[in-house]
């Protein structure tokens, strides 16, 4: 049988960058094919060419053995190719129904035939188990539901080949499981699925075969059953990667951070934390596990001083700092890698330098009497860029020119440079490729080994298990369990995370 999709010897150059260099990808009929690689490896470029966003400089594309020219997304849809983008292409103020049929409305006497549309969509939803309320507006939906709408939209247009661009990057673990379920179902119905990701576990869980890309070329194609995380990550990064960073023997010191019966409200004024207490000692990494939205954000904000608790006390190195300002807390030795680097951790349109100096710009010798020493601050920032391997021609460039991983390095560099007693690391590896993850893990472990306290908050259970000396499980604003490193395992924690036991 002919391949469902063949992209042969594709080359695509953008001004200054060779995004794809003689890349060949073959995808079997009815398989789930993983396309993996680090940021900037050229995965999305390949798929955008398949979807007709732009045409390759050279090379051919074949569908079911037939050579085709995909000149626009319109052609792609006609050829039965559907794409779910990472950033959803939906109109927030329209209903789900209108979003799905937008551009290919069934018509009756010049009007939209809503009944017919609903009938067709309901059939799709039933066949693939994709329930969504058609009359809700898009802005009312959760991220997972929006994604389902995107998938339905593609199927409604008759897609037989479905491209998913990093579909799990924005999903919670439970939503991810549901998505994988849907994908299996789609596969059973004869759909061919291309799955772009850089989460290797998902690749192993769901795909039939994998193509790995690095720096615009294919570094390997494997049958999923014949490969391993280790091999795939090596192909991706180009060197062996080991996330199991060696660590010194566990030897905790004094309490650095203590929370005593802390309660807090979220931004909508609802109770987010109900009397949580914890302690983090010098020389240990304490992990907070839990499904996102169970009070993690508020917990971090109470500790870092961005919101005031409604009850309880925050102690830092034995001192009550509940009423300290953010700056005062930072000056007494607290650092904070925020969960959302673009919303909280960086000013994207400002220069790297402007972002790097945030902990230092007001201090001697970097400034005196409110006048900054710009030369010194630039040197400071250039040095941090070098130390933390930020890939940029210079620190006067805007942060928005960096890739996600490099942005994270700016944040981490800035927060670690102050040599804090306590480092709060929230989702430190989110949206970061595996090479960068390894270096972040090393840095966190190094902090611990140097006798610093680290509070790790992460939605990735693997990460928590791999790094933490002690683990608290947060569920609906309460700690429902506490584990030591030796006694923790994924199954035990997952039970508490979902609230099945407390």
């Amino acid at each position: 049988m002919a391949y469902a999709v063949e992209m042969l010897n594709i080359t695509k150059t953008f001004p200054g960058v060779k995004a794809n260099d003689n890349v060949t990808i073959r995808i079997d009929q009815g398989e789930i094919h993983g396309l993996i690689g680090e940021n900037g490896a050229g995965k999305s470029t390949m798929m955008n060419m398949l979807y007709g966003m732009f045409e390759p400089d050279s090379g051919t594309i074949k569908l079911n053995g037939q050579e085709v020219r995909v000149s626009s997304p319109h052609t792609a849809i006609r050829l039965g190719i559907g794409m779910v983008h990472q950033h959803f292409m939906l109109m927030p103020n329209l209903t789900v129904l209108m979003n799905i049929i937008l551009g290919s409305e069934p018509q009756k006497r010049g009007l939209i035939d809503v009944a017919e549309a609903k009938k067709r969509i309901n059939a799709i939803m039933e066949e693939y188990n994709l329930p969504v309320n058609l009359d809700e507006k898009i802005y009312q939906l959760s991220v997972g539901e929006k994604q389902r709408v995107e998938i339905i939209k593609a199927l409604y247009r008759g897609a037989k080949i479905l491209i998913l661009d990093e579909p799990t990057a924005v999903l919670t673990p439970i939503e991810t499981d549901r998505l994988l379920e849907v994908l299996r179902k789609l596969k059973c119905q004869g759909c061919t699925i291309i799955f772009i990701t850089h989460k290797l576990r998902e690749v192993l869980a769901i795909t039939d075969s994998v193509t790995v890309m690095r720096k615009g070329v294919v570094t390997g194609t494997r049958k999923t059953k014949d490969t391993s995380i280790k091999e795939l990550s090596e192909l991706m990064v180009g060197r062996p990667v080991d996330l199991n960073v060696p660590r010194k023997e566990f030897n905790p010191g004094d309490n650095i951070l203590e929370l005593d019966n802390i309660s807090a409200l979220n931004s909508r004024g609802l109770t987010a934390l109900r009397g949580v207490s914890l302690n983090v000692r010098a020389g240990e990494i304490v992990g907070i596990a839990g499904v996102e939205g169970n009070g993690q954000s508020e917990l971090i904000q109470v500790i870092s001083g961005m919101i005031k608790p409604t009850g309880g006390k925050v102690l830092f190195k034995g001192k009550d700092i509940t009423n300290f300002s953010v700056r005062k807390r930072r000056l007494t030795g607290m650092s904070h890698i925020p969960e959302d680097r673009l919303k909280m951790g960086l000013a994207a349109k400002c220069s790297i330098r402007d972002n790097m100096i945030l902990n230092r710009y007001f201090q001697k010798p970097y400034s005196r009497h409110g006048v900054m020493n710009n030369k010194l601050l630039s040197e400071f920032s250039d040095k941090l860029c070098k130390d933390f391997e930020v890939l940029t021609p210079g620190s006067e460039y805007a942060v928005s020119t960096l890739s996600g991983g490099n942005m994270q390095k700016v944040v981490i560099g800035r927060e670690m440079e102050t040599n804090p007693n306590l480092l709060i690391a929230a989702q430190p590896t989110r949206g970061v490729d595996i090479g960068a993850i390894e270096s972040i893990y090393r840095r966190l472990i190094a902090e611990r080994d140097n006798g610093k306290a680290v509070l790790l908050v992460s939605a990735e259970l693997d990460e928590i298990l791999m790094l933490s000396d002690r683990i608290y499980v947060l569920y609906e604003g309460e700690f429902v369990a506490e584990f030591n490193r030796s006694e923790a395992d994924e199954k035990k924690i997952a039970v508490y995370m979902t609230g099945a036991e407390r």
Partner: protein
Amino acid sequence: MMNKTKNVVNNICKQIGLIIIALVIATIFLALSGYDPIAVIRGLMESISGDIGGTIRWATPLILAGLAICVTYKAEVFNLGVDGQLIMGACAGTAVALVIPATLPAGIAAPLVIIVSMAAGALYALIPAVLKVYTGTNEVVSTLLFNFIATLFLEFLVTGPLTDKTSGVALNASAIVPKNTWLPRISYLAPSTANIGFYIGLILVVVMGFIFYKTTLGHEIKIVGANRTLAKYAGMNPNRSVFQVMIISGAIAGMIGAIEVFAIQHRLLAGFNPGFGFDGIVVSLLANNNPFGVLFSGLFFGALINGGINMERATDVPSAVTDIVMAIIIIIVAANFAIPRVRGYFRLYRKADNPDTGVKGGKTE
């Protein structure tokens, strides 16, 4: 460093290009309205080159207004109330000038009325800032509405408490302020009304440049403007920055009021302000909110306005021609902001493999 210079040169060329496009479009309008565009432009050029003093006179309030706008713009606060603040500054300055003894040496009286005007402008700007910080009132709306209060208050003053009782006819103006409060004019540009305010403007350009690029205050304003959550997270106080920029902006506005009264009119007139505040927005926009750029765009608009006035005097071409040019520049500058955004939207499709494309606008989620 090379890169930086290149960037600056690039930016300047771009702004000059904008002006040229605006002038070209304006001439099309003129041609459509039945004027001879070439003659108009020549007339404009002649009145500009022949009357440097007039250019300086008009450029002074525009440069100051541009500075007042750009400082708030840096913090993403929009002060549309420069007009109101400069009126309040002028009112307070005049009121004080009319009560202090005429025997006070000018060296004390003149600085005193300037400081009073600046303080009044700053206080008047502080009200919307307080409303914004403590009640979440949108400053665009509040500052705009405060302009009307100020305008009506000015009319009340000049027809009521401060009205000139010595002249028999109703003038809608205050009495002439005592000579010891008058600000000196620039003698070699006489008989124009160009005055020492221009030097104050030059000094302020340098001071604002220094604040923006060399001080911690400027850095905080920049970060607050770029990302308020980040500012809070980094331990800054975004609310304090809002107060700071509004006070600076209002004080500069008050200074404009003082200059108009004490250097030019020598009395408080009901309609003394032709709308410098809003012109300041255009000045700042064209300068890309750069204080040094404000100097040049202020001079440019000053020349344009003065040229328009002179031309109207000499020919039958209305000075509204300059309004058209200004309006077209606003549109082009605004489009210049919009185009990269639209482009960013399309780039979303093209962007190679970056999971964090949330940076640029155009998300349709």
